[in-house]
């Protein structure tokens, strides 16, 4: 867990492509992870997040992927590097019940996993106690069976185990899964705490957008394609009017009414997201100038606005808009293809 040069690249991926049989799971993706960064991979199920992490953690055979991949300056493509790469990385899996010894105490669990890295018992205990303290795992639970701990505590023990050998980079698979909503922020704040205190480089995959709160850069994946890879602020400010959002509560909101708003003639780049039964968020260019005109336009067209507020878009909104945009593109392409086919027939 060195806190060295922030510019140092720990993971470098160029044109990674993953194929299983005939099916292409990952289309060429390129990205890097620098030392000390927290990187988040976001996407819905089947987006390819886990597949990318599996390549990086030597879980997918080289015959299934191509591209130039380096993890801690070693390629997972060569089997002889696997042992070294696995020594240099830590991994915190999604489900504790499948990845920890529930009948053993947290300290015994640490001992088992530490021995796999050749960390001696005494040293492992010392590091574990330090990590447990950072992660606020109550001392009176250290010698109790793990099964008696709460979900959040188990998750933190799992994180400590991932760091027991002081890896260069820690991979976390859905770190907030299985933790109740109230404790999700706790888990995320502990990750940030570890990153700050120990300088741990982290790569996490999640479909929980709250995790974006702690990441330095976020990758958005859809159907094996890397749509975006940038910092949260850069992604949000790339939205119309740097992400300024008008939130309307509209009576009997339906698709017809949304289409009316989309046809507002004064502003360009209008984006809408339905966030509730009767709530719609609208983004557009020249937000300040066009907002009052938009309201007038809506009223003129018979839309009854019950309430309205303004805000700055969150990462969740960015993610939704970006995915929506991609879906719209695909839909358009499909319509065009169908039209061409019809003409040919």
């Amino acid at each position, binding site marked *: 867990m060195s806190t060295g040069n922030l510019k140092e690249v720990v993971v470098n991926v160029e044109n990674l492509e993953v194929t299983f049989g005939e099916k292409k799971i990952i289309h060429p993706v390129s990205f890097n992870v620098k030392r000390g960064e927290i990187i988040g991979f976001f996407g819905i199920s089947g987006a390819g997040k886990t597949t990318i992490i599996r390549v990086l953690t030597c879980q997918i055979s080289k015959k299934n992927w191509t591209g130039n991949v380096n993890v801690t300056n070693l390629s997972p493509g060569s089997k002889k590097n696997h042992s070294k790469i696995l020594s240099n990385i830590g*991994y915190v899996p999604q489900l504790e019940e499948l990845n920890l010894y529930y009948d053993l105490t947290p300290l015994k669990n640490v001992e088992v996993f530490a021995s796999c890295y050749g960390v001696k018992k005494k040293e492992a205990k010392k590091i574990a106690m330090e990590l447990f303290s950072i992660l606020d795992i109550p001392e009176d639970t250290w010698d109790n069976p793990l099964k008696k701990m709460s979900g959040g505590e188990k998750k933190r023990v799992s994180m400590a185990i991932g760091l027991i050998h002081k890896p260069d980079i820690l991979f976390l698979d859905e770190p907030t899964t299985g933790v109740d909503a109230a404790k999700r922020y706790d888990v995320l704040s502990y990750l940030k705490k570890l990153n700050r205190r120990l300088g741990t480089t982290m790569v996490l995959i999640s479909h929980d957008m709250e995790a974006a709160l702690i990441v330095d850069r976020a990758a958005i994946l859809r159907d094996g394609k890397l749509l975006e890879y940038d910092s949260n602020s850069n992604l949000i400010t790339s939205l119309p009017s740097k992400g300024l959002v008008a939130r309307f509560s509209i009576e009997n909101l339906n698709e017809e009414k949304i289409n009316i708003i989309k046809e507002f003639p004064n502003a360009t780049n209008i984006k809408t997201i339905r966030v509730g039964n009767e709530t719609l968020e609208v983004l557009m260019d020249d937000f300040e100038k066009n907002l009052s005109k938009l309201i007038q336009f809506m009223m003129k067209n018979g839309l009854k606005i019950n309430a309205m507020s303004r805000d700055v878009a969150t990462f969740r909104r960015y993610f939704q808009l970006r995915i929506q945009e991609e879906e719209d593109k695909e839909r358009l392409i499909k319509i065009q293809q169908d039209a061409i086919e019809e003409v040919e027939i």
Partner: protein
Amino acid sequence: MMPPAIIMLFAFMSTSASITIPVKVSVVSYDSNTFVNQNNYTETTTWDNYTSKYLDAVKESELLELIEFYDASDHEDEYAMETARYELRDGNIECIIVIPVEFTELLSTGYPGIIELIPDSSNAMAIQDKLNAVQDSINIFVEENDLDPEYVLQEYEEFSVPSKYNFRYNYNMTILLPFMTFGISFVLSILVVVQEKPIARLLLTPVQKAEILLSKYIVYSIVLALQVFLVLTVAIANGLYIAGSVIDLYLSLYMLGFAGVSLGMFISTVSNTKTEANQLYFAFFIVSILLSGMFVPIDAMPDYLQTIAYMLPLSHGAPIIKGILSKGKSFIGFDFFWLLGISSVLIILSFLVINRKRYEV
């Protein structure tokens, strides 16, 4: 499906076993047909030799199978009895029929004949069968030679449990020890790999699959060593008679237990779920018990069942242990090396299977 399959197998085995298997015997004859006249030492008398006639009766009897005949008369074969005894110990024959020196003389002079029988008494429950079989040969001999039916069948039991030991306890222990050792080691190792959930995470450390399996083998071998020691200590403390060496018994029990561990580990690596492992365990264990020779002698089974029986560890482990306990045999022998072979094959297979198996976190 298993219970009906077991009943069908058992019924089939029992039907095929109803065909009588002849008792394997060797005949040692000290009989001499030349006798010195007691009143005149310069004269000798020669009578018809009844040994060869008795041998004909043995061959004729459907209840006996003559394996070897040793002519020990007139110092022809000095070590006949010793050789026959080794055969008896090794299980190649089930009893020795001894024809005494005065056999022909007594018969020729109208006295009742004497035949001595030395049955393998390590299986006390089967002694009567052996006596009946020999009696059948005597009946044939008497009938065919028109002899006085008054015969004396003297019995000297070999390899029986000494009187100071509890016969029933020792008889049961010859069955219980191998079954218990094999069964417990087998059942304990059946879930070792399949049940260990964090294996996938362990594989995201520099540890290899083979190392995980090897560590399991080491731990279970140590546990087995302690377990066998405990079982043996308790068995001896309760009056176990061991004709052979305690060390031989320990090593043979350990080897049988290790075969159980290997089989359990193999099933554990092959299985994808606990249920699958338990079902395979049940199937293997029941078949092992049924074909172990406890219910039906293996030799009485159809050929293909014998082939299966001899491939299973228990069919080899049980005779070794019985041999050490009752006959003082050594553990080294074909059965021991077969157990070693089975274990080695299962270990190799389990490593091959685990190396091909996919684990995902």
